């Protein structure tokens, strides 16, 4: 099984462990993820805040390259990139004059029908069916699944299972042997792109999320977005200064949780790259 793959910039840098863990579990599950050749940045928050055309043309170049490489399905683990690519595909399908402008700049006529999968959709379709066989070391932990904004909203486009209280990640974690706690901050915003420019706002918004997860007994927070991860993990000093208390709950990507449950080593899962140390107990089968 071979699928197209768009890592996006974060996965080559600040969230390398997300890349390492998705590649590691895909290998175990017999899936090859083939990178779009010469892909570029999706433009992220900066482009859609400042320049509408770039917010569409930058993702569209990647869609064009994926079509050239004859990819039918594209796996996009970063929730922010996924959101931009899906919104671009939709906007170009609805707006002919914009499609004409973008096609001319790309010098490529987009068919614009590639199937774009976020990490949860990818896991559900390709990994979940094999998961019972692949889990070697069940995760015996209470965890809080944190979805953030970009995987669930806008609801009309993202079509998440339940946009105020999604369950898709919770169900995957249960399959890994963990207990997914019920909590109200699943889809609250972490502060997103303000990590550098308004760090104190990230400290407050992420602080409320982390506090609720801990107060409800979570021993780890499970995420599927590099921005959420870096805000909850790397920005822990800002969180602790808002909460005025020390909080040591680790934040892991869902792909890292699967890697551990598959019996891969913490290093193969990239756990050593986190700021908040991860000590999760696993049970031997």
């Amino acid at each position, binding site marked *: 099984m071979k699928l197209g793959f768009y890592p996006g910039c974060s996965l080559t*840098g600040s969230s390398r462990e997300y890349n390492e863990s998705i590649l590691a579990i895909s290998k175990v599950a017999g899936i090859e993820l083939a990178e779009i050749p010469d892909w570029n940045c999706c433009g992220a928050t900066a482009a859609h805040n400042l320049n509408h055309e770039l917010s569409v043309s930058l993702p569209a170049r990647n869609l064009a390259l994926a079509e050239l490489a004859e990819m039918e399905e594209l796996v996009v683990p970063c929730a922010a990139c996924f959101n931009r690519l899906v919104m671009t595909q939709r906007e170009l399908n609805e707006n002919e004059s914009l499609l004409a402008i973008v096609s001319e700049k790309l010098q490529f006529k987009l068919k614009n029908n590639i199937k774009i999968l976020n990490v949860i959709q990818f896991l559900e379709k390709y990994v979940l069916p094999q998961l019972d066989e692949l889990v070697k070391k069940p995760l015996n932990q209470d965890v809080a699944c944190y979805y953030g904004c970009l995987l669930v909203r806008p609801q009309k486009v993202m079509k998440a299972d339940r946009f105020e209280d999604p369950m898709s990640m919770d169900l995957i974690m249960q399959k890994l042997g963990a207990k997914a706690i019920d909590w109200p901050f699943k889809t609250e915003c972490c502060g997103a792109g303000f990590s550098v*420019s308004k760090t104190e706002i990230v400290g407050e*918004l992420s602080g409320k999320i982390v506090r609720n997860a801990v107060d409800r007994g979570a021993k780890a927070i499970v995420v599927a977005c590099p921005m959420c991860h870096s805000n909850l993990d790397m920005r822990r000093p800002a969180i602790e200064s808002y909460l005025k208390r020390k909080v040591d709950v680790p934040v892991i990507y869902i792909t890292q949780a699967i890697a551990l449950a598959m019996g891969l080593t913490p290093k193969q899962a990239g756990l050593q790259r986190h700021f908040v140390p991860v000590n999760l107990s696993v049970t031997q089968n």
Partner: protein
Amino acid sequence: MKKNELSQNVRQFTGVDVVECYQCGKCTAGCPVADKMDIRPSVIMRMLQSGDADSEDELLRSLSIWLCLTCETCYSRCPMEIDIPKVMDYLRQRSLAEGKVHKEARDIVSFHKSFLNSIESNGRLHEVGLVMDYKLHSGNLLQDMTTAPGMLSRGKLHILPERIKDRKGLSRLFKGQTKNKKS
């Protein structure tokens, strides 16, 4: 600005008709940064409805439009399905084009500009270059001095940028777009 100019432009460029808002206030109630905003989301909608030229100018000069994180909670809960985040994107672009960016939002705008500069130069984000460019433009030179070494030791930072090969294709996308150098 002429009466109703901004709301008509909003309709033209985003497809959103602000008249549909009936002021229930759900957007403001669910907004994670409403308590920090100078004008709250439901009030922004009301001001656009009024079409008053002074109100429209005040919106473009507001901090709120830059504090919006595009989390889309307002949109997902709006009983009229009004795409407020899309309106915010439009207001930001107008505010920038007209040189009306709120003083306290300059760091946010500097960051976004540095981000786009990095993409224009390399095709991909270069985090070290981005932060250096941002520090120079925002004047926040000492920020994050403690985070960078931790990122380096964890293998999370590239000292040199990764560049895409198709430079021509990339520059075509940026051609004719507003330059993102410091305003």
